[in-house]
């Protein structure tokens, strides 16, 4: 149920708090950090997809002038680490399992020397049989990527809710098809990098452009075998994340061991090619069989999905992503009977992992097309099918997801209107068509231990300005601005009077970081609670000064006064100074935390995974050129339900940017592998959308209020690219009657399908 509230800061078109530094070039990204005596590190990578290391001789490299350290697995504990499964090493132990795997590394006085030294490291390799396709890898007799993983299977899911056999028997029509999703690279314009420093007392200080600092600290501590307190991570400005900078790679660990061995700070920055080969973990690619049973009236009666997901050589976040692809979409529509089977399979390729959408774009690519096929077979408008099945507030999914607010139907209405859907459907022109898809995402996900929370501290400076201390990561999405707005709204001060610190694991309290579209909702709640705590302290002090009851006070624009008597006030600065500058005084400082009302899913993966669910609808009108197979997107519309919009410019930017990545995923982006070796690891051959590639977009936010969110807000960041590929494919089918089932949708594929259709 939407609820209109008047806010003075929340929802205002404020400018981002870090905007000035960004437009002047003064923001310090990881490559801009320079420490006294700093060395530069480079990594030697495996040229083979699967090979045993018989011998490594580093002596020539060590003797090169200007080299300060050379490291191999011998300089590590040879202890595997990983987000969910400990299966990867800092540097190859015994063998390498994909092209690009870190084998050895060098720290030198400059990059020329470091690169020369890499060429002097002599590795004797014994190439081994390798496997590149997940389905092949599951077959008996396939080469094993890890000796202890039978048939290369990392995860198996087999879950049935309700009675799937009966549900299909009761269906009037059944749709069955197979869809192949594609890998996608994050392509943040800034690559992953770190600057590590080691003090001989045992403390590592690591500057990282990570989006999840405390998770990084936990994993780095585990891999190095030291307590977490011995690792301090300081976040640099981050040049884009999208899931790729969530510390599933070895960059910072290599920098740390080089710094320890050299006794000097060491910077390691991935080149663009390294970023493609072994940096960010690309989107998990999946082969998805979908079977849907519909009633004649359009209700979905049964859903069976079977997924084979490519894990690559190590696990990163793919175990959780596979579960999301298998189950998350069942929170979008009202399902009763579902069956899901999924296999996550090791191959000798780059480990796959977290990328905006986290399994949803793959699942929605398949399921939203299957629903569209059903709509066409039933002769029902896809908009109506979506409406008939759409989830609503109060819905509980078959897997236990509890929906506290849902404006999916409102989003459908908005989309219909913005696209002028009915009129366009009625006046259909040759070779043009309309496509639609719905999406759901979480606002945080409980999967790193039994916690999906955040904490924050706010202190009031003696000039009355508030400083938020938070370890949550600003990675460009603008969450710091939203957090400042939330604090300002709660404190009753101007947003210009709130600042926020950089994330630093030694100075800020525990935070899980930027993933699962969680920050506005979860860290927003933590900040709001911290501000509420601070406000109580301010009001306590002000009540003495105003000789009034603290319960009768309100604050606005930095002034505290009795409600209705605005003329007599004390400022926040007055109260803060009065509290501090006296005998037995105290600074005004308060903390707050928030842990979402979700549960860690049980062994059958049942349980409410998130505190709130965000919804969206997207539609496209496309025109297909029958001569060339070119798809032109004539118009695109998006309606999003993210609860209250806290920071409108930022929220719009999330929709527009997510959409651009969705268009890239749908139509452009693809990395070609040859025997596990990426053949186009650069921006000339792996193209991401430029300004000229993007069609016109119209978008709007639903009138929505999430009761558990800060001022009614919930998540938004990933929603916007989840369904885009399916939308485009559905529109192509509507235009020319061919259905493309593998990504990306290239003109070649469209032309081939048109030729085959005749």
């Amino acid at each position: 149920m939407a609820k209109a509230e008047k806010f003075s800061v929340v929802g205002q078109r404020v400018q981002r708090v870090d905007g000035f530094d960004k437009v002047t070039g003064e923001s310090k990204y990881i490559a801009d950090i320079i420490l006294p005596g700093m060395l530069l590190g480079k990594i030697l990578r495996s040229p083979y997809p699967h090979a045993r290391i018989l011998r490594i001789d580093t002596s020539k490299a060590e003797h090169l002038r200007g080299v300060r350290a050379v490291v191999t697995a011998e300089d590590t504990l040879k202890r595997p680490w990983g987000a969910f499964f400990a299966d990867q090493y800092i540097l190859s132990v015994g063998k390498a399992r994909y092209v690009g795997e870190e084998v050895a590394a060098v720290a030198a006085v400059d990059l020329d020397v470091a690169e020369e030294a890499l060429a002097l490291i002599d590795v004797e390799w014994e190439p081994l049989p390798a496997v590149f396709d997940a389905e092949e890898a599951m077959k008996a007799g396939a080469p094993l990527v890890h000796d202890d993983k039978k048939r290369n299977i990392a995860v198996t899911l087999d879950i049935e809710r309700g009675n799937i056999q009966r549900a299909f028997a009761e269906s009037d029509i059944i749709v069955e098809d197979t869809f192949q999703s594609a890998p996608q690279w994050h392509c943040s314009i800034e690559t992953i990098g770190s600057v590590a420093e080691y003090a001989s007392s045992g403390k590592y200080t690591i500057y990282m452009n990570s989006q999840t600092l405390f998770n990084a600290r936990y994993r780095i501590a585990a891999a190095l075998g030291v307590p977490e307190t011995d690792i301090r991570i300081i976040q640099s400005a981050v040049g884009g994340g999208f899931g790729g900078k969530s510390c599933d790679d070895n960059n910072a660990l290599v920098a740390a061991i080089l710094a320890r061995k050299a006794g000097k700070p060491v910077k390691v920055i991935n080149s663009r090619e390294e970023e493609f080969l072994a940096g960010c973990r690309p989107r998990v690619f999946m082969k998805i069989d979908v079977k849907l049973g519909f009633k004649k009236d359009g209700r979905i009666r049964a859903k069976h999905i079977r997924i084979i997901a490519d894990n690559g050589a190590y696990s990163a976040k793919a175990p959780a992503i596979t579960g999301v692809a298998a189950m998350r979409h069942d929170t979008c529509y009202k399902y009763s009977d579902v069956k899901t089977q999924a296999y996550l399979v090791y191959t000798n390729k780059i480990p796959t992992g977290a990328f905006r959408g986290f399994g949803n774009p793959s699942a929605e690519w398949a399921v939203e097309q299957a629903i569209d096929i059903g709509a066409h077979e039933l002769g029902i408008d896809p908009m109506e099918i979506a409406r008939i099945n759409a989830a609503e507030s109060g819905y509980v999914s078959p897997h236990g997801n509890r929906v506290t607010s849902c404006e999916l139907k409102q989003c459908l209405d908005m989309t219909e209107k913005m696209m002028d859907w009915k009129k366009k459907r009625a006046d259909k022109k040759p070779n043009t068509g309309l496509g639609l898809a719905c999406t759901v995402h979480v606002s945080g996900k409980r999967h790193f231990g039994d916690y999906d929370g955040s904490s924050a501290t706010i202190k009031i400076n003696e000039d009355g300005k508030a400083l938020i201390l938070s370890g949550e990561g600003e990675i460009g999405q603008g969450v710091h601005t939203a957090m400042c707005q939330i604090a300002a709204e709660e404190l009753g001060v101007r947003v210009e009077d709130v600042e926020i610190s950089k994330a630093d694991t030694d100075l800020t309290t525990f935070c899980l970081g930027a993933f699962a579209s969680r920050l506005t909702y979860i860290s927003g709640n933590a900040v709001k609670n911290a501000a509420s705590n601070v406000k109580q302290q301010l009001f306590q002090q002000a009540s003495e000064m105003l000789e009034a009851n603290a319960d009768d006070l309100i604050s606005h624009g930095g002034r505290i006064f009795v409600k209705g008597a605005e003329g007599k006030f004390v400022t926040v600065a007055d109260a803060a100074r009065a509290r501090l500058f006296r005998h037995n005084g105290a600074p005004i400082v308060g903390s707050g935390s928030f842990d979402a009302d979700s549960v860690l899913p049980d062994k059958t993966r049942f349980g409410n995974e998130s505190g709130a669910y965000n919804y969206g609808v997207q539609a496209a009108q496309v025109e297909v050129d029958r001569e060339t197979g070119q798809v032109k997107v004539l118009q695109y519309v998006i309606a999003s339900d993210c609860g209250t919009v806290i920071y409108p410019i930022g929220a719009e930017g999330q929709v527009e940017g997510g959409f651009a990545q969705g268009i890239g995923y749908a139509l452009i982006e693809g990395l070609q592998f040859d025997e596990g070796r990426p053949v186009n690891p650069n921006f000339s051959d792996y193209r991401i959308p430029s300004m000229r590639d993007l069609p016109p977009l119209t978008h709007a936010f639903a009138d929505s209020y999430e009761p558990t969110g800060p001022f009614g807000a919930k998540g938004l960041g990933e929603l916007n690219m989840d369904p885009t590929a399916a939308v485009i494919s559905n529109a192509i089918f509507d235009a020319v009657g061919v259905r493309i089932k593998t990504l990306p949708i290239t003109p070649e594929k469209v032309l081939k399908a048109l030729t085959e259709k005749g």
Partner: protein
Amino acid sequence: MKKKIQLTLNGKKTILEAPAHRLLLDLLRDEIGLTGTKEGCGTGDCGACTVFLNGKPVNSCLILSGELDGAELVTIEGLKIGPELHPIQKAFIQDGGAQCGYCTPGMLMMAKALLDENPNPTEEEIRFALSGNLCRCTGYAKIIQAVQDAAKEIRQAARR
């Protein structure tokens, strides 16, 4: 072998020594300490390292120091007009043209190059001129808006 290079950098005469093979991008960042110019790809594909060389925008990752003697360079650090932000910088802040901000210095330099030549560009002309500058965050909508707003502001200021 280091070579002596005389430059005008952001309006100031500068003399320095660098190997002829040193890339302009590395010269700026590592030898001169101007880190506002960013490396995104190192192959001239993304535009993050765009600077002005003799009045024209170039990818500084593709220019060798050996070509620079006598050159006039302007980097993001030289975009401000005195202590004031350039209108294109102001518009990027106002409209949300920067998210992560990493492509922003290059994008701003290219946008300035466009507006220097064409003070009233159409959306199509903006899309064409800036298509070599990749941004992964914004979807470009707010960048286009910012360039249009800056153009308007510059035209109005010229009339004042």
